[in-house]
Structures are given as structure tokens and as C-alpha cells.
């Protein structure tokens, strides 16, 4: 049973740096999309949107430079960031052969996957 307190220090530091960059990039990207989309909306004559664009219309909106679609992409990127962070930990535990926490992380990811798949699209 792996001792949960001992980590090859190097691996953990590398993981933390990777996750750090993931978080920063995620934030920067999503903010950029949000601002960009917001500016497009401000400059247009359209009535202000009250809902985000549903997934199935997103690609279309992206191509058509629809401001709300860009804002939606920004929000989705933001929501994805913590999830990707969990996924990063999952890979780490898998690589460390720390099975208990590989499973725990997988459980969390599965619950989130269910939430994403269930109900309206």
C-alpha cells in the first residue's frame, strides 16, 4: 500500500507546475473569449442576450462571429478548467500506481460526466 505521504518530490513539483499553468491559461483564454464576445455584442444592434448559446448551435455561432457564442465558449472553457485539473490529478495517480486515488478521482470525473450527459443537451 503506497505511503500517501511520500511523493517522489520531483514528480509532484512537476505536476503542480503543470496544473498551475493549466489554471492560468484556462482563466486567460476564457476571459479573452468572454471579453471578445461581449464587445461584439456591445457593438451590434441586437437586443442583449439573456441566455448562453446551447451546445448544438455553438459551432454555427462561432463561425458567424456571434458575440453570445463566443461568450458561451468562454464560459465553457472556464467550467472545463477545474475538470481538467482533476483529470491531471487522475493521470498523476495513475502514473504513480496509487490505485485508491486513481479510483477516487475517476469517481469524481464520472459523476461530472453523468451531469454533463444527463437531461437537456
Amino acid at each position, binding site marked *: 500500500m503506497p*505511503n*500517501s*505521504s511520500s511523493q517522489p518530490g520531483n514528480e*509532484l513539483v512537476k505536476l*503542480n*507546475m503543470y*496544473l*498551475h499553468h493549466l*489554471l*492560468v491559461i*484556462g*482563466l486567460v483564454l476564457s*476571459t479573452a473569449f*468572454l*471579453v471578445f*464576445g*461581449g464587445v461584439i*455584442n*456591445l*457593438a451590434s*444592434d441586437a437586443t*442583449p*442576450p*439573456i*441566455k*448562453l448559446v446551447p451546445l448544438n448551435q455553438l459551432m454555427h455561432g462561432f463561425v458567424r462571429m456571434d458575440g*453570445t457564442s463566443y*461568450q*458561451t465558449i468562454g*464560459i*465553457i472553457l*472556464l*467550467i*472545463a*478548467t*477545474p*475538470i481538467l*485539473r*482533476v483529470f491531471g*490529478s487522475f493521470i498523476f495517480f495513475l502514473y504513480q500506481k496509487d490505485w485508491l*486515488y486513481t479510483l*477516487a*478521482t475517476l*469517481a*469524481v470525473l464520472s*459523476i*461530472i460526466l*453523468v*451531469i*454533463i450527459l444527463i*437531461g*437537456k*443537451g
Partner: protein
Amino acid sequence: MYNPVILMEDIFIFIVSTVVGVIGSMLGIGGGVLLTPILVNIFDIPIKTAIGASIISVISTSSGAGSVYIVRGLVHTRLAMILEIVTTLGAFAGGLSAMILSPSALAFIFGGVLLYVVYMMAFGKERQYENQAASKLIFEYDDPFDESKHKFGIHNLSIGMILSFLAGNISGLLGIGGGIIKVPIMNLLMGVPMRVSIATSNFMIGITAAASAVIYYKFGYLNPGIVTPTLLGVLLGSQIGARIGGRVKSVRLKQLFSLVLLFFSFTMFIQGLNH
């Protein structure tokens, strides 16, 4: 061109959100607790939309501060993952409930939770566990300020998990659940030192909020006109707050904050009765 009135409102929301971000990051509390009542009571935004916006700002706070905590090695990832299994389930249940419950019921529950927050701010104390007999989930870290090495284990894991489910529920339901719920569970109940509690809770709230946000997205309660100024404001505010952090006496700030929350708790109760 946009209606100038709406633009002005967006700018006001941005400014207010920035203030919330500053206060929040200085106290380790923020996001929904202060943001949602302000959006509902001052800007007259429907409560479910306000909660949706605050959930998004919680994610940004988590990622923003998290990028610092993770590098300092203060996040107890293993504990977080164990607790998040039940917390995310709770968020799932809470988020769905929020879709079903009436706005006035939500307002009422929100008022009650605010009272709890005020109580915790007034009477909650950091706990030190002397005896590190617990062997579960041992975590080693360095204090970032004096570089002293620390090691501790977790107590009361099962109760912690039950409470975490509740925390997740409230998170998904009301769009809050950062410092005020998860930190006491870890620090007071499970024996996690304050710094690690804050860092780990910060990690957890991002995951929980992401799960809830998916539900709010699907049901159409994420309003880009509200989310954008809110998110940008809180992001800016938390950057400012993190930098001016030590200069303001946090006791005074806590007192002021508690009064404000108390006030909002009553306004939320009134909202609940009015609908």
C-alpha cells in the same frame, strides 16, 4: 449600439463585483455569499440567474487563487478527491433542486444560510489538533511564510464526508460554499491546519461549482449579460485583494462584513416572503 441604460448597469455590476472580489479575497470568503444578495436586492436580478452568475465567479476565484496555492504545495489533493466524490454528488442533487424549487423558497434558504455564516464568522475558531494519532491521509507541507515543515493526519473522515455532501448540496443550490462551509469542516472537524484548509477548499469549490454550473447552463440560467461583468469584476477584485491583503485590519473587516451579511439575510427572508 446597446441600450446605454443596460451598459451603465453592466458597468455598475462590474464595479460592485470588483468590490466583492476585493473583500472576498481578503477574507477568504466571497462569491455567492455577498454577490447573490447584492445582485438580487440591488440590481433586481432573478435569484436563479444571480446564483448562476455567482457560481461562475466561484470557478474563477478557485482557478485564480488556486494557481498560487498549487505551486506552494498547500493543496491536500487526496483529501479533496475523497471529499469531492460526495460533494459533487451533493452539488448534483442541489443543482437539480434549485431548478425545481421556487425562487422564494431559494431566497428563504439563502437567508438562513447567511445567518449561519454570520454565526461562524463570530464564533468559529481555528482548531489545533495536538495529537497526530490519525494515520489516514497524512500530508506534509511547508509553511510558505516561515518555511517550517509540517505533517498531519485526518480525523473524523466519515462525518466529514457526510457534511461535505451537505456542503455540496448547498453549493449547488445557492451557488456558494467556499470558505464558509468547507473550511470549518476541514479545520474544525478534521484537524486540517488553516492554510491547507483554505487552499484545499479553494480547489474543491472549483470542482463543485463546475458541476453545478453545467446544470445551470443546461437549464438556461447563465445570462451572459450578468455573468460577464460579474466574472470580470470578481477576477479583478480578487487580484487587487490578494495584493492589498495584509494592510487592512481583518477584524474590523470581518465585523463590517458580518453586519452586511446580517442585513442581507433579512432582505433575503423578506424576498422569500414577498413572492
